């Protein structure tokens, strides 16, 4: 177990190193620079600004400097929030994305598995059809439409939730539902399909023939196998949900980190682009690692090495 763990961490470090390198050079290859949108910087001012941020040095030197700072845990200072470090920008924004992400993940996992199981057990009955229609809607309508529709109905028309922000508990309802719509639909379908498939297998028939209760058959025997594909999906899903969503944070006016991904690129805020990419990469690597471990524990057929 320990050996496996060390191996995985080493490979994660290599992955992150490659992500840093590729992102760094790709980012510098996009045309435009961070000061392009400043009004009228004359050539002298421009040169002084480039020098101030070390952008006048050769690319390779900049890369080496970045790596050196990175190893010391210094992600640099954001260009678009003058004087504020990237660590602070991410540190202040992440709790918002994380809170929404956790609530959404809990809703998605528990409701998704529950709905999926209900559908599988009541296959082709009315309730199954209703959930499947809802799942199709949730998976196909883009989140900005859902978000705007939600605000129009529940905020502007009914006045039940605030128009923006997460200052109150009610403010979380919209973002959680909208960000969860797609994964919820997906998990519902996945659980349903998987459970239906497992129920056809011999060992389930054996269990039934032994005369144990239907509840036990489903809960103890069928569910465990049926949830394997769901567990695989949960890891990357949680990582992507807790890192926030550009659209949802923008529409609901939430100061999370999801919107930073897009805005930092638009603004050519190099330190923030790097910081946010590496941060997301680390989160993803960790969550995949956890999934792999859970996998082994759920399915004895899989070995760690």
């Amino acid at each position, binding site marked *: 177990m320990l050996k496996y763990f060390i191996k995985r961490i080493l490979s994660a470090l290599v992955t992150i190193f490659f992500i840093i390198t590729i992102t760094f050079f790709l980012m510098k290859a996009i045309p435009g620079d961070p000061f392009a949108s400043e*009004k009228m910087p004359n050539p002298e001012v421009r040169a002084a600004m480039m020098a101030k941020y070390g952008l006048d040095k050769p690319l390779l030197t900049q890369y080496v400097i970045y790596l050196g700072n990175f190893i010391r845990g210094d992600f640099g200072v954001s260009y678009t*929030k003058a004087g504020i470090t990237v660590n602070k920008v*991410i540190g202040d*924004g992440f709790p918002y994305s994380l809170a929404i992400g956790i609530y959404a993940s809990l809703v998605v996992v528990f409701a998704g598995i529950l709905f999926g199981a209900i559908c599988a057990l009541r296959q082709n009955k009315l309730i199954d059809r209703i959930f499947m229609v809802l799942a199709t809607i949730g998976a196909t309508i883009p989140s900005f439409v859902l978000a705007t529709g939600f605000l129009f109905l529940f905020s502007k028309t009914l006045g039940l939730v605030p*128009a*923006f*922000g997460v200052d109150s508990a009610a403010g979380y309802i919209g973002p959680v539902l909208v960000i969860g719509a797609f994964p919820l639909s997906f998990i519902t379908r996945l659980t349903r399909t998987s459970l239906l498939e497992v129920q056809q297998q011999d060992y389930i028939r054996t269990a039934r023939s032994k005369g144990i209760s239907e509840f036990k058959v489903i809960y103890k025997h069928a569910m465990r196998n049926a949830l394997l594909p769901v567990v695989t999906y949960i890891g990357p899903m949680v990582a992507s949900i807790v890192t926030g969503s550009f659209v949802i944070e923008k529409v609901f006016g939430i*100061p999370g980190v999801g919107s930073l991904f897009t805005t930092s690129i638009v603004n050519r805020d190099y330190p923030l682009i790097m910081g946010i990419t590496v941060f997301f990469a680390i989160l993803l690597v960790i969550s995949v690692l956890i999934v792999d471990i*859970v996998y082994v524990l759920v399915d004895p057929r899989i070995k760690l090495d």
Partner: protein
Amino acid sequence: MKRKNCLALLLAAALTVGLAACAPTTGGNGDAAATPPPAAPDAGTPTTPAEPAAPSTDYMVWNIGSEPKTWDPQLNTEGMGGHVIINLYDGLVRDTNDGIKMATAESYELSANAEGVENTVYTFTLRDDALWSDGQPVTAGDYEYAWKRACSPEMASPYAFLITDYIKGAYEYFSGEGTRDDVAVKALDEKTLQVELKQPTAYFLNLVSFFTYMPCREDMASTGEGWEKDPAKCVTNGAFTLEEYKIGSHLLLKKNENFWNKDNVELAGIRALFITDSTTSLQGYEAGEIQVTSTLPGEEIPRLLAEDPNFTSDPALGTTYYMFNMDVEPVNDINVRKALSLAIDRKLIVEQVLRNGAVPAAAFIAPSFKLSTGESLRSLDGSGRVQEEYGIDPYAARVEEAKACLAEAGYPNGEGFPTLDLLYYESGYQASVAEAVQQMWEQNLGVKVNLKVQEYAVFANTVGTNDWTIAQTGWSADYNDPMTMLSLFTSTGLNEARWRWKPYAGCPDDTTLNPENEAYDNAVNLAGAATGADRDGYLIEAEDVLMDNMVICPLFYATYTQVIDYGKVSGPGRTPIGQWDFQYYKMVG
């Protein structure tokens, strides 16, 4: 097996909840740290209970739109930061809707310099009761420090030119040829500030009202970039002071009890939001949660204009236009430029495409700019509407004349005319305007137009090169004087049109020279130093040269569009250069 089972379930749960461990600042579930301060109505008095007494202790909620990069007066270049600075700081003078007013300075004298050139030395006398928010007196030295700071080479402020172009010795200091002591701004004593200009500048007080000229406390600003974001270090001398800054979320500004004019400031404070999504911003206003904002969806503006009395569209100091690259074919031919300009129906763009109250333009400088007489620089008809100028009818296309010009350029009915590249950037109405004009040029002139869209950061770089033909762009005022527009096309200015009569070190690859630019340069330089009617004449002359050569093709004069919830607040709109100065606002609801 059983134990393993439980472990598996626990781990699965940890997958969702346990990721909190990766969170840099949260203690476990992220909720506590994510709980922002109380909602707007209570935000002003988080520690003391609300009192029933008037005036209202409620903070006014204003959506700035996007988060300002900085509100350090000498570093800022953006409008967003400008709004914040104008509310936090008080300059020597202040730009109001009634003109320039004395502010922290109670008076000034204008005199001659040592060489006897009149109107070059300003001596300001500061009021005795001017205090910083921490109670220390505002001194002339705070202004001297700030103005020298703005042009210091270490600061590399993009707006250094607002100091270096005017104050004697400032350019030398900035470029390394001189020293800090050579900058001719000096605190003669605690309350007297003297500044010597390179030449008489009629609009110097307009500059002094601008954010770059706001005072700055050396003990705070010298603590490192980002000082202004820390309420403990952001010591201010204006109507408000910084109470809280939440990255990506909002600013709280509270009334500065040490402000010299505090008795006339009625707002208890301002909650300034950073909501970038215009639909959310509008919904926030319509739900009564936002009282002031100009972040509104373009497609909703016609409806607001028609239905909502809280919506206003005011003439702004700015113009949107097509800029021609004067060095490339086919637009280096004046007849081509004329043909393109005449073939546009500006009324249709304003009334059918924009529908936001903008005014069709037949010239470069917007009607809101004034001459020394106080009258508009534009000649307006009896009802205040813009008229035909430079052969351009703001209310219709002149198709026959346009065709004749194109024929004269050698392209009868557009035959043989190359496909035109029209460059614009992604933002608001830009695409719809470009598409409308594309259609007009194709229909009226038989000219094929290829639309090229770039994101703004790339667009701004592209127009700095020779690699474009026509760019859809515009300019808005930094200060309330036509020079803010005219300085754009001088041979040593930004001059992205590459319209220069002599080489300029700042743009070494602009080697195709355009002799007509010399007359423009001369007129602008003369206008810079002259006053009164003479100056008005030079300003008009400069614009004439620009427009007679059709370096730009005007489209429309800009407007400021905004909603102010008059059921809850009252106030005078924006300042002439479009800033929100909330010391004149109050809560009424």
